[in-house]
């Protein structure tokens, strides 16, 4: 057996880090699109649809992401489609992200005072115009910080994709640890790489939050 130097370990982990980043971006962007659509439906449609989407959110927030991944993996297979870990992880993480983002954004829209809706309505703006010109510009400002903050949760969530066999940073860490018998070093490096990815995002979210609070004061 050949020896692995620290550099070998780190280099292989860095290669795997790519897939963590790619999966995070797909889930975040996909989840953002689906979440935005759900938000639109929730604002637009009647009570029953609002309630249905509320239930959707509760389902994802009240169950473990791990179970959601397993269900995506075995559920898609039931429909007779060949599932790769890629598909299952993408689907599960996208839906998971969409549930959280739609809820965060709904809260931001709800925090815009009712008078804004009424005033824009009295100016004969259509629903789309109200959203585009009056409500969203204000809501987006409030929503940026928690949305960026949630990106950290998504990145950390992708670590669970390792359980269904998706080779990203955590899975690569397990494999390298099994090959090198140096779990302490390997998992320290894995944790540090996640930290290097997530901490700047956390700091940026905190910075945005502070900026908004200053503006409001």
């Amino acid at each position, binding site marked *: 057996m050949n020896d692995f130097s620290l550099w070998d370990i780190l280099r292989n982990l860095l290669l795997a880090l790519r897939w963590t980043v790619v999966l995070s971006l797909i889930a975040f962007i996909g989840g953002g699109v689906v979440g935005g659509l759900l938000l639109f439906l929730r604002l637009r449609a009647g009570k029953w649809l609002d309630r249905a989407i509320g239930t959707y959110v509760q389902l994802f927030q009240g169950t473990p992401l791990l179970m959601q991944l397993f269900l995506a993996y075995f559920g898609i297979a039931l429909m007779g489609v060949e599932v790769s870990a890629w598909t299952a992880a993408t689907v599960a993480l996208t839906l998971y992200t969409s549930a959280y983002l739609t809820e965060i954004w709904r809260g931001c829209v709800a925090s815009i005072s009712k008078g804004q809706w009424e005033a824009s309505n009295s100016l004969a703006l259509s629903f789309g115009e109200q959203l585009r010109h009056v409500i969203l510009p204000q809501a987006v400002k409030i929503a940026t910080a928690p949305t960026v903050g949630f990106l950290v949760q998504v990145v950390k969530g992708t670590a669970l994709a390792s*359980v269904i066999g998706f080779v990203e940073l955590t899975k690569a860490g397990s494999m390298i640890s099994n090959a090198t018998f140096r779990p302490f070093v390997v998992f320290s490096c894995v*944790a540090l790489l996640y930290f290097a990815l997530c901490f700047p995002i956390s700091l940026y979210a905190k910075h945005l939050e502070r900026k908004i609070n200053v503006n409001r004061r």
Partner: protein
Amino acid sequence: MEFDFGAVLVDWRLLAKGIVWTIGLTAIATVIGMALGVACAWARASGPTWLRWVVGSYVELIRNTPFIVQLFFIFFGLPAAGVMLTPETASIIAMVANLGAYATEIIRAGIEATPKGQIEAAVSLALNRMQVFLRVVLPPAMKKVWPAMVSQIIIVMLGSAVCSQISVEELSYAANLIQSRNFRAFEAFIIATLLYLALSVGLRRLLNWAGPKYFFGR
């Protein structure tokens, strides 16, 4: 496609055992984790500078790494450094560390919102620093942040599903075991997911009720 939930439900004993483990792990992690959170929040708000720095690093390190990696580090990594742990102990340590870090931030937010006048009033009544913190600052702070705390405890409970990966026999381990016997994977995980959902709804109710009653008065 045909579903056979009966094939999974005959193994209800395994599921019940799993639920007991999940609840047990969560209960222990909640109690110790919240105590740790209170201590760290105090240290961060009014401890010496070096302690603030240590607690700050701990909080950021935990909050910016995935739970599963923390768990693997404790369970697979620490034995290499000479610390042997059972899967259960490793899980509890990971869950406590995790909840403790988030609780620190949550409780600190509550503490910072305490009006200065209240602390001054308490000091003028000759309460010492410990009394001021435990009796004047902490109860209203906990009350203020309780909803966030409850959500975090539920997140930790849901996160405990990952502990099945180091063979702790909690709920998702039970589901995995059942599906490996009868190949009814989808059914097994649907049932486990619904059980988790029921647990999180129940836990939220319980904590919303218990918080005001036992921790910080009405």
